[in-house]
C-alpha cells in the first residue's frame, strides 16, 4: 500500500510556476503516478500520468526521480482558473494478490492570486 503525502496548501500568483511534490516512499514496481485536479462541487479531472523520468503534456509536467519515491507536478504560468485542489494518486489495480488499493494523497489546495 503506497501511502502518499502532499502539502496541504500552496499560494501562488498569476504567471508563476507552481510545483507540488508528492511523497510515496512505498511505491510498488507496477504503480503508476497520476495527478488529478478538482474544482469545488466537481469530480476530479485527470491532469497527467507517469511511471518514471519526465512526462509533459499541454497543461503540466511531471517529474519522477529514479527511485520513484516522490513526484513533482509542475504547472507553468498559472492563472486564476488554476485555483483548485490537486491530488496525487499512486497505485495499480492489476496486482490482486497484493490487495488492491488505490491511494489518493490528501490533496494540495492551490490558491492563485492576481
Amino acid at each position, binding site marked *: 500500500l503506497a501511502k502518499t503525502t502532499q502539502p496541504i496548501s500552496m499560494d501562488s500568483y498569476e504567471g508563476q510556476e507552481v510545483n507540488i511534490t508528492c511523497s510515496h516512499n512505498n511505491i510498488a514496481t507496477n504503480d503508476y503516478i497520476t495527478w488529478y485536479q478538482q474544482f469545488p462541487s*466537481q469530480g476530479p479531472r485527470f491532469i497527467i500520468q507517469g511511471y518514471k523520468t519526465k512526462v509533459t503534456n499541454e497543461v503540466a509536467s511531471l517529474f519522477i526521480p529514479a527511485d520513484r519515491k516522490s513526484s513533482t507536478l509542475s504547472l507553468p504560468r498559472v492563472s486564476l482558473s488554476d485555483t483548485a485542489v490537486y491530488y496525487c494518486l499512486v497505485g495499480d489495480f492489476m496486482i490482486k494478490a497484493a490487495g488492491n488499493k*488505490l491511494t489518493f494523497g490528501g490533496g494540495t489546495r492551490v490558491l492563485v492570486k492576481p
Partner: protein
Amino acid sequence: GAGVSQSPSNKVTEKGKDVELRCDPISGHTALYWYRQSLGQGLEFLIYFQGNSAPDKSGLPSDRFSAERTGGSVSTLTIQRTQQEDSAVYLCASSLRAGGSHEQYFGPGTRLTVT
C-alpha cells in the same frame, strides 16, 4: 460524448434509512470505481469493478455498504441503516480498464446528507 453520470445529484435521508446511489459509466469502460469525499477532505477509495469480475471490496468502511454492477455497466452503491457519518459526496469514476495506467473519468458525484 457522454461522460460518467450519477444520480441523484443530492440525497437527504433520515438516519437509519437505506439509500441507493447510481452510476452510469462511460460506454465501453470496463472498470468502475466508487469513492467517498467528506466535506473538505480528500478522496477515500471504496470499491472497484473490473468487467464481470468479483469486486474488490477492500475499501468499504463497514458491512452496511455494498455495491453491485449489472451487466458490466451501471453500478449501484447501497448504504443500509445510514448514519450521520455517512454524509459525504460519493463519486463514481470509470476507466477503459482497471489499472493505474488508465485515466479515470469522474462523475459529478452524489451529495448525501443524513439527518
